[in-house]
């Protein structure tokens, strides 16, 4: 079980890396607007050919 002395710091370092990545995402402004990205997914479909124009 002495592997715990390696496993534990490794896990904590991973967690730290995760937090740092999140902080980077926040600082680069990716989470400033939580509303509009939800609306952006609507426009990405390709319309099937032969659709009537309005």
């Amino acid at each position, binding site marked *: 079980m002495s592997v715990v002395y390696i496993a534990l710091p490794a896990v*904590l370092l991973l967690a730290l890396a995760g937090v740092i990545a999140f902080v980077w995402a926040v600082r680069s402004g990716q989470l400033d*607007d939580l*509303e509009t990205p939800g609306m*952006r997914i*609507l426009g990405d479909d390709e319309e099937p050919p032969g659709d009537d124009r*309005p």
Partner: protein
Amino acid sequence: MSNKTLECDHCGLPVPAGLVEPGAERQFCCSGCRLAFDVIQDSGLDQFYRIRERVDEPGRPAASSGRRYQEFDDASFVSLYGRTTSDGLATIDLYLEGVHCAACVWLVERTPIVISGVAECRLDIGRSLATVVWNPDTTKLSEVARFLDSIGYPCHPFRGAATREIERRADRGFLIRIAVAGAVAGNIMLLAFALYGGAFHGIETEYEQLFRWVSMVLSLPSVFWCANIFYRGAWGSLRTRTLHMDVPISVGILAGFGWGWVNTIRGQGEIYFDSVTVLIFLLLVGRFVQRRQQRSAARATELLFSLAPTVARLIVDDEVREVPIQALVPGSLVELRAGDTAPADGVVQDGVSTVDRSLLTGESRPVEVTIDDPVHAGTVNLSGRLLMAVRTTGENTRVGRLMRMVEENARRRAPVVRLADRISGWFVLAVLSLALATLIIWLRLDPEHAVDHAVALLIVSCPCALGLATPLAVAAAVGRAARRGILIKGGDALEELARTGRMILDKTGTITEGRMAVAQWTGDEWARSAAAEMEAQSSHPIALALSTGSHMTPHPAVEVMAHPGRGLTGIWNGRSMVVGSPAFVVEQGAQLNQSFQTHILEVVKAGLTPVVVAADGEVAAVAALGDKVRDDAAASLERIRDLGWSLEVLSGDHPSTVATVASGLNLDGRGGADPEFKAELVKRAAAEGRVVMVGDGVNDAAALAAATVGVGVHGGAEAALAAADIYLSRPGLNPVVELLEGSRRTLGVIRRNLFFSLGYNLVAVSMAMAGLMHPLVAAILMPLSSITVVVSSYRAKTF
């Protein structure tokens, strides 16, 4: 020819009969929509219409302003409002009018496809801000602005950069705290699993101690940095002698951490780091959601710039020069052509014309102006050329002062007291006394575990679910409401709307359609079609009323001459026609017999506008025009009254017209109220009790900001929407009823959530007092109570 009302191909609203082009493939309700449609088609962006259908959003007429935006190309402009990026591009935030739908996001963000040189255009719909990144060497900003304007989104430079920066930094700080709290809680939970497993099956002391110490050290950033918000709140609460929920939260966290720390050093006894850190995480999430629901203040300067033009036609030495309005000083002489918006307050020096004062009065009926009459910034000159001498400019104009009033009223408004805050008072006392009681009792029974039980009680009684109860219920309700076209900016308004109080409604555009229509026609029917033909080319509200929905004839009217403010003359079907006010018709030589004269007096007394149609010198008919009350008004107002609200009308229109409408609907009414008066009345009412203001015009904006809750209705001016807490994107008064009923249901969900959370707390506290609260049980109960609240909020059918 058919009587069918054609729909505009851009916005879907009906096309006035006078603007129908027979035989044309496409029909539009206004030149703005036509322009928007053409630009969208030419740019290959017509998928916009399919997206809008998919999202099932109502269209709005494109509000193109036709401005040239030349001032956007000024060197100082970019340095003032934007900045250059590291790779030589420039970026700027522009405030866009009219972006209220998901399809708008798609359209605006396609700008880089249409205009080369624009690298990116991202829209933040919550703030109506478009961030444009472009290459200033190859592309002019004015071109970008004109494109956005042409598709229906006039733009203004965003002036609130400083405040937004502060808000943004605060929001980001919060998110980082949540991330740290979450990471810490998750990892401590993993360690706790090991320790609980060890408690059941045995664990070597060495590792047990290791895990306990690591848990404690890990919890430090969470307890002493992330949770600072709660300690500060608790301290503030104690200093003002009001018991806020932050007090029991802080006590629970610090007691749990403190006792766990003692036991870690002692090497024995229970530790509570897992519960405490999960608590901090969940509470922070709840707090974050709550922050986002708070009402955003309206910004006066933003609003003002959407109302007044940015350039003016200054007359210098008999020459007209276009200058920015900042260049105007009192005494400047400004030219107003037909269709121009007045850039400042002043007095007419020369010219005769009619002016649209709806900005300040709410009525779009044109008002005649001549020499020595006042002109207000933001009003639109309609028919003739005017020369005006400037008296006041910018923020000192009447509309500028109104916008400042909007900002002040919004800022001074008392914050909403939430139901949850109200019960936190006795909650704190109850928890602290029970903990004390537990300590005392157990010190007698089993002194070794006494502190354990007391600390366990403090932790499990921590209002975690309680802190989530309101924000989640409100967030879920706001989301559902948005899908029904009810856009709620300030979620805490929902609790207020769930109760009763005074509801003050604007008349024009809110209770009434906001357009003139023919209420009564006395006389020959053929005269109706004749009048329609005569009025077909004019866009005056009276003309639209007479021509919409009337049978068109095979004979168009010719030689039509408009006499501003009085009427039209022309030839129709070989007959010499006059359509206009009674005085005008008499002037033109027609005779008004006694019965018509009496009838006209009755029309005026009823608050309607009489329009006389005469052919070849003989009066053929009299039309009574008025603003029709909405079809659903009576029923909706009755339901609102049933819900317990007292109703009244407050309007800028003539007192007699308002009285007629009000009595027809069985309400109290008051007319002749200018925007300042409306704001004063609502402000005083809000100080005495709950007041909800429902309105649509710029003249309602200050009142909307002063009310406890301001509701802006469909078709409203941008400034009114910015000042209101809630915007109804569907026409009519029925959405108001839905809003009130939905708010009641939301309050019901909040109560249910509070009931559940308190229930959990009760069970947990009882177990703790009985000495049965093992940390494992606490660690399970808390997420369970939170999940219950989440499920209860998001499955509720509030809207």
